């Protein structure tokens, strides 16, 4: 079944930043239509793993496969064309542009009526953005910014969303809202890979859980199973048991 075929796969990947290797022999499958949550202690390589999916790191060996195609050496903007959207942790919007300008820019290569249609879809998913349409994006709250960042991603109708720690530095209440929005994104049919430092909240919205420690995958399975593994939680995640 096509449903069973993963959208993306890493095969025995060794990767890092130039000469500094941070990922060791990583193999991973990203299931289609699901939320995959990558968790792990600080500096474990969660973000590196996500960036490797998007081509922002150096891959020394192994393969990166997207929809059956080997894209290991492909630069990020080419991957964007294939249907991958990466949402950075910080600076993921244009603060000096208005909300609507941000969205129009994201769809700069779309036909006009198609773009307007997609902007409308974004506004339906995130009504708050419609209210803020003509406001400079930089004057919005942290939660709204993340909302806009996801909206920018949606305009391009990506097959895969890669979201890097969207709740970092946000107040707990707003963080919860942001994760709810990630879930809403998934409910619209988007496949999501999420890196999240808030392990519990992250795994609660996720289908698949991946635990990365010291650059290696330690757990790879259903999110609720990872959540239930008290031994792992104690060891690596600092969760109160």
């Amino acid at each position, binding site marked *: 079944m096509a449903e069973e075929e993963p959208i993306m796969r890493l095969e025995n990947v060794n990767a890092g930043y130039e000469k500094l290797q941070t990922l060791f022999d990583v193999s991973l499958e990203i299931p289609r239509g699901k939320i995959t949550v990558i968790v792990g202690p600080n500096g474990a390589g969660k973000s590196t793993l996500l960036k490797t999916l998007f081509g922002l790191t150096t891959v020394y060996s192994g393969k990166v496969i997207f929809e059956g195609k080997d894209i290991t050496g492909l630069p*990020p*903007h080419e991957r*964007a*064309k294939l249907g991958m*959207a*990466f949402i*950075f942790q*910080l*600076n*993921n*919007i*244009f*603060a*000096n*542009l208005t909300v609507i*300008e941000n969205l*129009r*820019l*994201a769809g*700069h*290569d779309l036909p006009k009526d198609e773009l307007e249609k997609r902007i409308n879809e974004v506004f339906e998913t995130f009504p708050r953005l419609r209210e803020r349409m003509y406001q400079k994006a*930089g*004057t*919005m*709250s*942290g939660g709204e910014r993340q909302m806009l960042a996801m909206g*920018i991603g949606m305009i*391009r109708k990506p097959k895969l969303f890669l979201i890097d720690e969207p709740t970092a*530095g*946000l*107040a707990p209440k*707003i963080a919860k809202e942001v994760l709810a929005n990630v879930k809403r994104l998934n409910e619209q049919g988007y496949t999501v890979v999420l890196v999240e430092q808030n392990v519990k909240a992250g795994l609660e919205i996720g289908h698949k859980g991946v635990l990365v420690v010291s650059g290696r995958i330690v757990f790879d399975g259903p999110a609720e199973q990872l959540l239930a593994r008290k031994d792992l939680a104690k060891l690596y995640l600092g969760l109160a048991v």
Partner: protein
Amino acid sequence: MDWNLFTSTTIYASVLALLSLGITLIYMTTKVFNFAHPRLSLVAAYAAATLMAYYAQSTGAQPNLTPKSSFLGSLTVPFSWEFYVIGVIVAMAFGVIAALVEYYGILKPLQRRGADYLMLMIATLAYDFLLVATLFIYNTHVDVRKVLARIGVLSTKMSMTSYDVTIVTSGGAFISGSFIFSVILILLLGVSLYLLLFKTTLGVKMRASVENPPLAEVLGINVERVYAISWIISGLTAGLAGYLMLMAAGAGNLKPISATSPADEIVVSAFAGSIIGGVNSIFGSIAGGLLIGYIELYIPNWLAIWTGNAELFKYSKVISMLAVAITLLFAPEGLAGLLKGERWKKLFGRKEEEGVSEE
């Protein structure tokens, strides 16, 4: 009011505005302080002068300096309009060529080899020396001299001021073509930059690429092309400045371009304009350039009248340096910073919008 001081200062201020704009634009996009920038206009001026003279030579046109009467007053148009149009177009073209050679020939290759911003800055200085030396060789070349001499222009002290269009009104006021051109140019430049940056997709892409290049790239915007466009605009405006320097040499602080004084001093004022404008603001740079132009000439003029010492005129550059010092000390964001909303909001006790950033 001293009309002649006003018109010549306006021309000078416009040249500075054009140059400051180019410096700021390049700094905003490629983060390089381009010390060679004012010299790009020199290349443009030399090329324009040569080709204008060549045009006059090939068509056998002689300057016609007898004034005609018109509804504005007595009007002198030494050459046909093609002569001036050729000058403007050639100047813009060579400004762009000199800018693109700098970017693609020097800065980009260095960047690819991992040069940092400091290295690039020094490289722009090297390019500056290279241009000066090349132009020196060029304007002492015997054929170039001959072509220019044909219409009475000295290659060692290049100026076409005597061929500028002039109007002397019935009231005796003197209006030069360069003055009219510079006023129209600055207005047009302001309006067209506003339209480009805020009303076109390209403009939004430019603003986006300036603010957040990695994100722009992720969205499939060709940031590299946006940078190239900004170098082209900077070359165009340098070319226009060069044309004005050629046609209005002697106006304000504009020196006739020569091998011994190859527009050296204007570098200082152009950078002052950019810094006072706020370094990161396009419109600030235009305002900054204009402001420097006016205060550099008006303040020494007032001081000279007040003290009765005409020598004070020589110290006009001190004024721009002081203006830079004051800006950096008290308003480092320059004119752009002063005009930003926050300052006024605070003055009137309005609170900032809530939740501006939680990062």
